[in-house]
């Protein structure tokens, strides 16, 4: 691996062949893996062959003719990018003849290129400029007066980058990056010969094309043709820092390129092991929220939510919060307060919040936003496999033969991993999609699912059972694997259970809506098609049977022998950047860090001794339990770090009613979010750019978050929690997050070998990372399951209590879209609104016609819980009887409609199934009108000068 801070382009991709070849390059003996290009081998030996169309993120193309070399015994001048190394070759990269050829090529390029280098955005960082220098170009014999492209018009339609065809050398790097790296195929070279030009879509502007603004083309461009607008505005960066994206659970590594404390651009780091130099529109471009004028940077307090906010010092705010929490405990008991950790904050910060609750509040009333997303994953995978985490690394998908995607929409939710998956699918892997909607993966450029099991919302467990039924009854179980690796008593019970006729595809077809024959073929393909990997998301977990479905998925993987090696496994696609980490850090009310139950005396003693307190042995309240307890008066104070429960939790009106019962709500966030409008203390938070720490992504990869600018409010989030603990009389004294990680490593068996020094050295590691696996664990359960024998569990399908009726005849399901992120607090404050500026409700044309609804109409959505109004998008992606919406904008009130139904094991809300009716309306719902008034009133209570807008 390169040094984490190096950014060398080797010209062509790395070969992973096990055999090696030895050759001579410019007199040096070089040994490289077979399949390595001469260009890459030379670069590895420190010889940079001039190049323009080659870059190591895409396959070699051999078009620019700049990288020609001489090889003894071969005629002509082969391109070093497309010529593989062979044993015994003798290569020269420099000679008078090669220099003449290269200068000639450069002359042609430069004759059709504007000579505005001094005022060009990439001045000082332009490969064309570099190559002109490298080949010693001194004149252009053709002059500049001939036909050229220098007057071509710019396309500035994309909010983040410009396309200036006058500077294009038609090297096709952008086109190849769009195809090979991103997999969207939005770009092409149109025209022939002199007329050749890069074109988005069908000669469209970038914004009108299929371009998803991932930035791969911009990164690949060797000139200023595709340039970030921030770079054009600000100029070249003066230094860069490697850090980790704070959006989804992929956890991409980025180079934050800086001018002093200002970010110029975020560029995906090619040695990042989760993203390999790729990015999406959020991580690459949507970071402007970090310095948005809406940031609240002063602590504030108030006695009641009807009072104006008062800006105070950090000390006064913390003393106020500490005093009120202590007063509540004195009056209502130790268990009357609690805290919520954030999946957006670092591991160290989540650890400190749960430590504050357990050691200072001295109870276990701590929960986290994973409650509303992947808590069933924690339960289901722990119960069956023995560990609350996915089994693979992302790269494992490149060795999969059959990919089963259930209840996940990777191209929107986890776009960088989706690109990797699509790469494998284009190379021939089979795809089975289980989803009520026709997500993009079902059919997109060069990808088509073999089977799309378009089930009815709420019937995942029935589909999983039917798949298992086919596998068991058609003799497709991997008997040897099961006999060796699994608990046979549990397996025998499970085999008998799924073999029952009521679990057959035919019996379940009327319930699931999935044709039995198609389901049978899908099951056979998964069981017999080679390495079978299952990827799932919130479409599995956010159900009344979310945990049952996770268990069913684990059963399927074990029965087919698809656990414990590369290319297979059970892979939860985690929603937020640090969902995995916040769960690992003991954020659940029943578990200490490392998933040890609070009833385990040994674990309690370990932490108790380290923290100097007695840890309580009873589980604390989950978030929905906190709301219930608030309503009955036994829970009175809450500290919420970086989560917007009012917008993100179901049944908004119930959440608000509970928060209004609290005597003290302390919100720590970077914005006055919806929850903060009900708070008594506001502690300004810090963005991921303002602090040190670590995030753990969906593949258990722990990556460093590095501070690139000082916290706008003066304190990083971990410092705020520490100061609150101190204000409550507890001696919490860390001088740097690395000391917090050292403590985590001392107390958590799966983290014992993790340290900042190691992360700096290796880039990242996947836990378990301990004495047995000091460099981490890409694949889990290799020889044995963490729990010993894999445990099959029975998964009876039980229909949700949320039924369609004559009054509520449609089922609504929810999800997210590529350009926005969860509650939208970050992305709504960026140019990403250019793609998605409002939540809409998608409805099938038949359902729309029945109701007289046309595309763009305002429709009222009414459920048993409430009503809201959104505009309609009529779409054949939907199946009749099912509607869909996103939840990125608070005024949409998507969670005004969702109900209190939740998963039986974890209380994860059933966001994915709500019975509704849609009707044409002409005005916002009553809730929306109230919301607008309330939000406006709350903003007016901010101190004068605050720039927040409603």
């Amino acid at each position, binding site marked *: 691996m390169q040094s984490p801070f190096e950014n060398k382009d080797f010209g062509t991709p790395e070969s992973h062949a096990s055999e090696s070849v030895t050759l001579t390059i410019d007199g040096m003996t070089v040994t490289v893996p077979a399949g390595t290009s001469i260009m890459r081998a030379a670069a590895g030996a420190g010889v940079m062959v001039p190049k323009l169309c080659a870059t190591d993120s895409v396959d070699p193309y051999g078009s620019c003719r700049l990288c020609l070399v001489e090889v003894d015994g071969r005629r002509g001048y082969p391109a070093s990018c497309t010529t593989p190394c062979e044993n015994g070759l003798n290569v020269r990269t420099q000679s008078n003849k090669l220099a003449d050829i290269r200068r000639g090529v450069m002359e042609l390029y430069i004759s059709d290129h504007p000579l505005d280098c001094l005022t060009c955005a990439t001045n000082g960082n332009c490969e064309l400029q570099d190559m002109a220098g490298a080949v010693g170009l001194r004149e252009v014999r053709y002059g500049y007066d001939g036909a050229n492209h220098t007057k071509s018009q710019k396309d500035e339609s994309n909010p983040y980058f410009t396309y200036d065809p006058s500077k294009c050398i038609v090297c096709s790097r952008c086109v190849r990056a769009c195809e090979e790296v991103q997999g969207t195929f939005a770009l092409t070279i149109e025209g022939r010969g002199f007329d050749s030009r890069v074109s988005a879509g069908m000669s469209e502007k970038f914004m009108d094309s299929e371009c998803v603004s991932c930035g791969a083309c911009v990164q690949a461009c060797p000139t200023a043709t595709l340039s970030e607008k921030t770079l054009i505005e600000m100029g070249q960066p003066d230094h860069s820092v490697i850090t980790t994206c704070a959006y989804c659970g992929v956890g991409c590594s980025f180079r934050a390129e800086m001018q002093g404390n200002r970010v110029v651009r975020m560029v995906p780091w090619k040695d990042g092991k989760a993203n390999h130099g790729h990015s999406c529109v959020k991580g690459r471009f949507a970071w402007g929220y970090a310095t948005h004028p809406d940031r609240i940077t002063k602590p504030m307090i108030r006695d009641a939510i009807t009072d104006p906010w008062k800006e105070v010092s950090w000390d006064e705010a913390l003393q106020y919060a500490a005093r009120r929490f202590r007063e509540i405990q004195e009056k209502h*008991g*130790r*268990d009357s307060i609690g805290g919520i950790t954030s999946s957006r904050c670092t591991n160290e910060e989540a650890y400190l919040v749960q430590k504050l609750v357990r050691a200072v509040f001295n109870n*276990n*009333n701590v929960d986290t936003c994973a409650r509303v997303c992947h808590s069933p994953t924690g339960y289901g995978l722990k119960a069956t496999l023995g560990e609350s985490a996915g089994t693979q690394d992302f790269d494992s998908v490149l060795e999969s033969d059959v990919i089963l995607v259930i209840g996940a929409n990777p191209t929107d939710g986890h776009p960088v991993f989706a690109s990797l998956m699509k790469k494998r699918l284009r190379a021939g892997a089979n795809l089975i999609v289980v989803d009520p909607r026709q997500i993009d993966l079902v059919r997109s450029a060069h990808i088509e699912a073999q089977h799309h099991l378009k089930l009815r919302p709420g019937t995942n467990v029935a589909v999983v059972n039917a798949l298992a039924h086919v596998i068991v009854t058609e003799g497709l179980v991997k008997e040897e694997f099961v006999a060796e690796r699994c608990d046979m008593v549990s397996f025998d*019970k499970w085999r008998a*259970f799924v073999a029952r006729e009521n679990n057959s595809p035919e019996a379940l077809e009327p319930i699931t809506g999935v044709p039995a024959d198609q389901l049978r073929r899908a099951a056979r393909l998964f069981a017999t098609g080679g390495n079978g990997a299952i990827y799932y998301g919130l479409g599995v977990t956010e159900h*009344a049977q979310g*945990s*049952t479905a996770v268990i069913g998925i684990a059963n399927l993987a074990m029965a087919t022998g698809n656990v414990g090696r590369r290319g297979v496994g059970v892979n939860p696609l985690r929603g937020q950047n640090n969902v995995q980490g916040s769960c690992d850090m003991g954020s659940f*009310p*029943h578990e200490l860090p490392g998933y040890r*139950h609070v*009833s385990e005396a040994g674990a309690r003693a370990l932490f108790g001794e380290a923290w100097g307190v007695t840890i309580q042995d*009873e*589980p*604390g*309240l*989950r978030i929905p*339990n906190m709301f*219930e*307890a608030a*309503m*009955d008066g*036994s829970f009175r104070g809450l500290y919420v770090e970086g989560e917007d429960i009012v917008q993100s939790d179901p049944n908004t009106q119930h959440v608000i009613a509970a928060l209004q019962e609290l005597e003290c709500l302390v919100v720590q966030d970077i914005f006055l979010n919806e929850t903060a409008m009900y708070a008594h203390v506001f502690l300004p938070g810090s963005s991921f750019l303002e602090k040190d720490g670590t995030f753990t992504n969906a593949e258990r990869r722990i990556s460093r978050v590095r501070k690139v600018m000082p916290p706008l409010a003066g304190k990083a989030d971990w410092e705020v929690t520490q100061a609150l603990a101190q204000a409550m009389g507890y001696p919490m004294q860390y001088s740097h997050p690395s000391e917090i990680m050292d403590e985590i490593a001392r107390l958590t068996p799966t983290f014992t070998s993790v340290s900042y020094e190691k992360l700096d050295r290796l880039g990242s590691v996947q836990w378990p990372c301990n004495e047995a696996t000091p460099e981490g664990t890409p694949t889990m359960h290799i020889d044995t399951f963490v729990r010993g024998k894999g445990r099959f569990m*029975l*998964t*009876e399908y*039980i229909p949700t209590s949320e039924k369609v009726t004559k009054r509520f005849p449609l089922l609504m399901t929810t999800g997210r879209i590529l350009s926005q992120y969860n509650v939208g607090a970050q992305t709504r404050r960026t140019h990403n609104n250019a793609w998605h500026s409002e939540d809409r409700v998608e409805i099938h044309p038949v359902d729309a016609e029945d109701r007289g609804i046309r595309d763009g109409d305002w429709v009222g959505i009414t459920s048993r819980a409430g009503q809201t109004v959104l505009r309609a998008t009529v779409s054949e992606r939907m199946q009749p009887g099912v509607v869909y919406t996103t939840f990125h904008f608070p005024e949409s009130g998507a969670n005004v409609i969702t109900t*209190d139904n*939740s998963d*039986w*094991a974890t*209380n994860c809300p059933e966001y994915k199934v709500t019975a509704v009716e849609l009707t044409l309306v002409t005005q916002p719902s009553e809730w929306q009108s109230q919301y607008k008034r309330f939000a406006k009133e709350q903003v007016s209570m901010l101190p004068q000068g605050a720039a927040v807008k409603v």
Partner: protein
Amino acid sequence: MHIENLVTMLNQIESFFATEPDHDLAVEGIRLHVQRFWEPRMRRLIIAHVAAGGEGLSPLAVEAIQRLAPVKAA
């Protein structure tokens, strides 16, 4: 805490474990789940509800709660 919600939650838990053919294992599964995941005030309330007749609860759920350890005083 609304006892109606706890009854609903407990019946949901029961319906997962009820598939277990071994009666004792099913009851123990429910008991253990409640013991491990329910905060004491929830357990206290459901125990009291079962003591008062357990209205709305399935028989398996009632049996599991009857086997639940008493909740310590706060």
